[in-house]
């Protein structure tokens, strides 16, 4: 070995032009070695090409078994009259389960409720999350503590939380009515009055998801370069102006993401209205005033045991989500084009 530093870390000697002992001409290789190397190289290529698929395959195999199959089975079941009491006993019904939805006032009622509850839960939720994230973005003592606290509702079981909310919203002995009573407000029937019930259900959703969204916003806010704020401050922009003109535009993709995720979550809303019902049924209150599509599907499938109808409802919900996805895609493309 000479004193020059080796540039290869293989055990082999460096080639001659690097001052090594290896001959400059390519080494003589027998045809057998060449074949071997070709074989190895083919194997290497196959490896590179196919191994990733092998590595991701467990997920997709599980998905096919537990995601794809139910999806297809549900589609098949939705074309039949079939009861949960005898799932193998299917009677072909064509599109009847779908066409009857047009005259199914309970379906449209549930769709309307899903929409209104979605609006009154998502809009305040995301606005509050933005505000909270903005506050948490300042230098705070014990900021980690606050961030963890923000996530606490998200980590709580919905069922447990909703039971507590039911007690809080109780008509006769609930804490919220007691508090309102101090200001002379009459007892509100939170569970049975349409709009109050929807607001109450929304409040559970808001409580649960605001912190989660705030953390997403916070993460995005921390990625905004500090100099933008500094120069804005130099230009004399107030904190509020900074929020409006620096933070918000930079958060645009994140906001879009949370809007989409929240919309999907809202359209699948199920556990909160189920647990909130004073009668503990799946009808979403005595007049179905907060029955969401998810709850209606559950009522048809699991309470009334009409598997075919429930499957059809499930598929319409799936189609609605696809539409939401397309709208989101179009909007995000417009946004990207405009910025």
């Amino acid at each position, binding site marked *: 070995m000479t004193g020059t530093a080796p540039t290869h870390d*293989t*055990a*082999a*000697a460096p080639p001659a032009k690097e001052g090594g*002992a*290896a*001959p400059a001409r390519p*080494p003589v*290789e027998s045809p057998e*070695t060449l074949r*071997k190397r070709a074989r*190895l190289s083919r194997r290497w290529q196959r*490896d590179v090409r196919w*191994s990733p698929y*092998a*590595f991701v395959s*467990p997920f997709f195999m599980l998905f096919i078994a537990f995601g794809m199959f139910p999806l297809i089975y549900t589609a098949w079941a939705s074309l039949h*009259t079939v*009861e*949960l*009491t*005898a*799932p193998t006993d299917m009677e072909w019904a064509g599109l009847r389960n779908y066409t009857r939805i047009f005259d*199914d*006032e*309970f379906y449209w009622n549930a769709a309307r409720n899903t929409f209104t509850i979605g609006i009154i839960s998502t809009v305040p939720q995301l606005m509050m999350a933005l505000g909270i994230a903005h506050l948490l973005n300042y230098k705070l003592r014990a900021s980690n503590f606050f961030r963890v606290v923000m996530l606490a509702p998200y980590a709580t079981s919905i069922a447990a939380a909703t039971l507590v909310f*039911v*007690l809080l919203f*109780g*008509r*006769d*002995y609930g804490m919220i009515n007691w508090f309102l009573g101090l200001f002379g407000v009459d007892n509100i*029937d939170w569970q*049975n009055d349409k709009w109050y019930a929807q607001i109450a259900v929304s409040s559970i959703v808001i409580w649960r998801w605001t912190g989660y969204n705030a953390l997403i916003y916070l993460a995005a806010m921390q990625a905004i370069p500090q100099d933008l704020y500094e120069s804005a401050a130099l230009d004399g922009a107030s904190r509020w102006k900074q929020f409006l003109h620096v933070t918000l535009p930079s958060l645009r993709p994140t906001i879009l993401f949370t809007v989409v995720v929240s919309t999907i979550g809202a359209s699948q809303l199920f556990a909160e209205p189920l647990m909130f019902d*004073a*009668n*503990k*049924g799946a*009808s979403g209150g*005595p*007049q*179905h005033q907060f029955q969401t599509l998810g709850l209606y599907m559950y*009522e*048809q499938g*699991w*309470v*009334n*045991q*009409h598997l*075919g*109808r429930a499957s059809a409802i499930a598929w319409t919900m799936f189609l609605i989500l696809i539409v939401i996805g397309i709208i989101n895609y179009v909007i995000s493309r417009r946004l990207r084009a405009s910025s």
Partner: protein
Amino acid sequence: MRARTLPHTRLRSGGGTRIARSTRKTVVIAAVAALGAGLLAGCADDGKDEEGGSSDGGAGGKTKITLGLFGSFGFEEAGLYAEYEKLNPNIDIDQTVVERNENYYPPLVNHLTTNSGLQDIQGIEVGNIAEVVQKYSDKFVDLSKYGKESDYLPWKWEQGTAENGQTIGLGTDVGPMAICYRKDLFAAAGLPTDREEVGKLWTGDWAKLVDVGKDYKAKGPKGTTFMDSPGGLFNAIVGSEEERFYNASGEVIYKTNPAVKRAFDLTAEAAEAGLIGNQTQFQPAWDTTIANSKFAAMACPPWMLGYIEGKSKPENAGKWDVAAPPKAANWGGSFLSVPKSGKNTEEAAKLAAWLTAPEQQAKLFSKRGSFPTAQAAYDLPLVKDAKNKMTGDAPIGQIYAPLAAELPVQVVGPKDQIIQQGLTDNGVILVTQGKSPEEAWTNATKTIDNNLEH
């Protein structure tokens, strides 16, 4: 030297990484395989556990029998499991209880259709017994060889028996209904408090009960209502009918049955007049109204006395009493069944028969207030001399036994539960919230029809 060794070394080093890579690959494949095997083994383990638990005996060679129940059957609380385990040292009993039948029945149906996940003994509510008997009788062990038919009320035995004569459910209890009332509140309203006299106020007609409610409202303490909930009253009235939601040939008649409409209208009338609190039974807020003494009377089968006791404040003990209802009516009563898919159907059937035998039913009544479905138990001292603390030691055994003898033999249909729930939860409850009886009826029937439609 080096030059010559170069290709070789290279090859070796190449071979080295190759080996390393293929080892990695092997490791990954092994890991995946292990994961898969683990999943499979997981399933296999479960199977083994069940087997081990029930047949060859896990703990000390004992046979384990599991019960899946809802609500409060009270076998464990009444000490019946302990007693049976003492009598049969090779048996180990284990129960899982779901609070509400609405949450218990749908999974049960699921398990029955797939023949999996069933316990050795499954409880069935009377509202579901017809559907189970009609649709799933082939999935159950015939219990007629284990229970003694002559011990039971004939109609109760019949409810648990399929057309082919196979008995799939042994009745645990029946619900002869009475009217429980608060002596102190009745006295405050100027009404009689003696149970004989109170019973006479409304003998023969539910409308008279509502009239008493009007008297109560006029003079009773402010802030209280005569009865607790629209659901409770409606339930009581239809409970005295033989045909309610289905006729004897199995057709749905709830909408055209005048008895159902009458019960609905009477309940609605009472609700409109403000005689009933606007509560849903068995919900936390309703429990609080019991604790706070917010109503004076309620329809109450014997098991309700246990419920009242559980929710009342201690100072209310002795303030209740039990009077005869306007008409004999039935509320509740469950069955025990043994699915064929169990590992120990023989032992399970023996246990089910033992739990529902007259002696055990009498014990259950004296401890938990479930009224025996075995008429043979009515003369046993545990039933005859039963007293209840909440009612000031009223002789509840003697009060309820004659009511049980008069119970109407009810036609139970497969969707009774859905119809009943619709009429109360989507019907009469609305009247207490200011809707007209017509609106409430429309809302209820629309809901039920939509739910019954395939």
